[in-house]
């Protein structure tokens, strides 16, 4: 089970890293890659992954702020 958790945790790390890199790029508005074209179980799984990545990123930012405020 620990192996699966580590794989999942690495996936979350990759999502956060890619989000930081692609923060300035625009999302496609038309075509198959557009947000409206997505759907089904894959989109739901991605949403849950994004939600967890959001929370983890938020915890990290809050931790950095508190640690910086202490200095």
């Amino acid at each position, binding site marked *: 089970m620990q192996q699966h958790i580590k794989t999942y945790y690495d996936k979350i790390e990759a999502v956060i890293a890619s989000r930081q890199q692609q923060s300035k790029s625009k999302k496609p508005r038309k075509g198959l890659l557009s947000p409206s074209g997505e759907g089904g179980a894959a989109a739901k799984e991605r949403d849950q992954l994004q939600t967890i990545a959001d*929370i983890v990123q938020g915890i990290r930012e809050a931790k950095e702020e508190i640690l910086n405020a202490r200095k």
Partner: protein
Amino acid sequence: MLENESKVGDVISNTPPGISWTAPAKGRPWMNAPNVVDVSAVAQGYINSLGQAEAANDILDALESEIPLAVIAETFMLTGVHKGRHTLDTGILVMPVIIELLQSIADFNNIKTVKFTEELVKGTTVHPRVLREFAKKVSEPVEAAEPVMEQEQPTGLMARKNKEVM
């Protein structure tokens, strides 16, 4: 009198062995529907519970014991499943949040921790899936290869030459 006799007889004949060790249907918290279904709500619940001052000493004791954070987080998560707060699937989804919270608490208190066991970090362990495939390959019967007979090429003057296929 007759009723009592029939009751005793029914109990003996109808009770399957080991029934006293089993719980009734939906008699355990994890057998019922979970209290929280939404992933973000489950994560919020762990953020609230781990942030309580009453739990701080116990969490710090666990962190100082140098147990990997993933193991402690798994214990928290399985406790939540045991109490019927959420399902196992939702708990696994929320595991990174618990690990990150524990890491933050450790950093605030200057406790050195590791997230995963050393074997997992170094990658010295083999994934169970790979092991299963390996065991499957090993257990397969090996077919003996048929011996290939080499034909001697005729070398005499009257020997026919092999035509090359274009």
